[in-house]
């Protein structure tokens, strides 16, 4: 199945959480593949394991069993350097709960991923480019007024958009977004979806988690998660 046309493949993914003696099996063998340039929505009931699955796809967590392949190559948890490069360059992750750094302002939060991959000298030469890109992304997401604010000064929806800008900062091959419109009114949510659709049109692969079927309908394909397995795709 390792074919050039797939950017992401999940094969036989098992994940369970141990709580004392009890074991909560969240994912019980998830298989699917995502092609380059696809816009996929993962839907499922609350607690069905959508976030868990997305974390596994973004190499933020390790499956108990099964493999995640990126561009045909298995994510190697033993190679820290490769893993960090993958998280920094290959995927952009939008968390359900934003996860911004409180001590940095909006713009700094957005260009942080660019900063991480650069040395002090590299940053001195490249910082203008990065700062401008951060600004541009924030404008696209309607946050031009908020560039110098601190995350705690923003509303939930605004924070979510900052998180999206951060995920896009390093032009990742794959964008993973957990409920990117969950905290937005339908107009703003619609705006985000338009941004996603535009990105998708330029070839960006997007995997988006949502529990809202209307939003999912905007994606090119829907994967439904139920009872720890993919029930339809």
């Amino acid at each position, binding site marked *: 199945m390792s074919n050039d046309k797939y950017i992401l493949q999940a094969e036989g993914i098992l994940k369970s959480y141990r709580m004392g003696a009890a074991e909560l099996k969240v994912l019980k063998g998830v298989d699917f593949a995502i092609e380059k340039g696809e816009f996929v929505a993962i839907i499922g009931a609350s607690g069905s394991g959508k976030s868990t699955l997305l974390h596994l796809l973004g190499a933020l*967590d390790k499956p108990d069993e099964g493999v995640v392949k990126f561009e045909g190559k298995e994510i190697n948890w033993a190679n820290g350097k490769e893993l960090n490069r993958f*998280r920094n*360059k290959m995927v952009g992750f939008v968390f359900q709960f934003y996860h911004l750094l409180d001590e940095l302002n909006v713009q700094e939060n957005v260009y942080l991923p660019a900063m*991480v991959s650069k040395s002090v000298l590299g940053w001195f030469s490249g910082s203008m480019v990065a700062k401008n890109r951060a600004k541009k992304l924030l404008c696209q997401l309607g946050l031009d007024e908020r560039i110098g604010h601190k995350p705690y000064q923003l509303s939930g929806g605004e924070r979510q958009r900052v998180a999206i800008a951060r995920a896009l900062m390093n032009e990742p091959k794959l964008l993973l977004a957990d409920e990117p419109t969950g905290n937005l009114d339908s107009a703003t949510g619609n705006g985000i979806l338009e941004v996603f659709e535009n990105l998708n049109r330029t070839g960006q692969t997007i995997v988006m988690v949502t529990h809202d079927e209307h939003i999912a309908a905007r994606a090119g394909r829907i994967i439904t998660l139920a009872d720890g397995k993919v029930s339809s795709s």
Partner: protein
Amino acid sequence: MYKILLASRYLIKRRISYLAFLAVALCVFIVIVVMTVMIGLVSDFKEKNHSFAGDCVVGTDSLVGFAYYADFADEVAKLDFVESTSTVINTYGLINRSGTDVSRGVQIFGIDPKSHSLATGFGRTVHYHKDDISKVFVPAYDTNLPGCVLGIDMAMIRDLRGKYQFGQMPFNTKFSISCFPLTAKGALAKAGAGEINTKTFSYSDVSQSGLARIDSSLIYIPFEQAQLLCGMGGVDKRASRIHIKFKSDVRLGTGTNKVGALWRDYMRKNKDKAKANLFETVTVQTWKEHRRSFVAAMEKEQTVLTVMFSLVGITTVFIIFVVFYMIICHKSKDIGILKSIGVSNSGIIGLFSSFAVFLASLGSCMGVFGGWLFLRKINSIEDWLFARFGFQMWDRSIYAIGDIPNQIELRTVLVIIISAFAACLVGAIVPAWQGAKLRPVESLQVNQL
């Protein structure tokens, strides 16, 4: 770069960083002050004992003394590593201030003031004859009488602030000193009513060694007078001790061993002389051995104090550790975020160690500076407290300490700073490592390590 950015933000934006900074500064400050004062007190006490005894002492505790000392003193003086020697009579007697009928026991040192102040720190302890020590036994009044130098606490009383009030000249008083002269065999030299030798001396100076026992019970009189008083004169004159000062580059042990060898040689050569039996009680000792009954007690106390202050030190180091540990534990979410955007484990540790190093440097600079300032002013502060509230840290009439020691030792400061840095770093690295080795999602979920 992100490390510098974030570390400086953590430093500036978080109030707990200021608290941590204060904690480090305070800990460094306290340990520096405590250690400096403690080390100062101990080394001051040792230095005073060293100054009192010279480097090496050849002599006997027997009140009979030993004979043929002069030739040996000459031989010692000829050694190339010896700077000077002083022969001393040590005996005990009664002192009676003329015009009163109270007598008290005293220790009596018969010395030649000039050579004694070359071999020991005696010259620095007198008050009126600092400039011309050879005249220390020349009294201001009754110049026909020999002079005597009293331990300062026998002649003066400290005021409440612990200071002595010196007059222009020693006041006009005479003392009569009585000894029981002993023969070379240790028997009383005279029998019957005249068994005591008494002589009158005119008070000519005081000696302040800083050692309470010495200053309250020792008087100095001219060597020959002492020799006569205690019966060590006559044929085969006797003396009690030879105090020796080595040249400055001579190691104490080496010098003392060489003097010891010379002494054994000397004993062998003179073993057939009439009073050679007196050699048996003579020992050759370093000043530490000679004063061990005092120094050892102090060293014991020092050990106890060191243990206690190590506990204080360990506690402060632990406090610093805990402060950092707590700060970083609360940053587990940040660790998760950073890891999710590709920061390496070493990057996480680097970030938090630079934060710790920032704080440690600022804190210890502040602590050292504060300690230095406080110690520089400690004596004025104590004076002020006393003037204002009548509070004195220690009673100057009991402790023969003029000032609270405040000489900061570079070594102490270095040890303290290094410990503070180590505590900050360990306190930062341990939780940073715990957070870094988790998967990003795990550290995001726990919220606190």
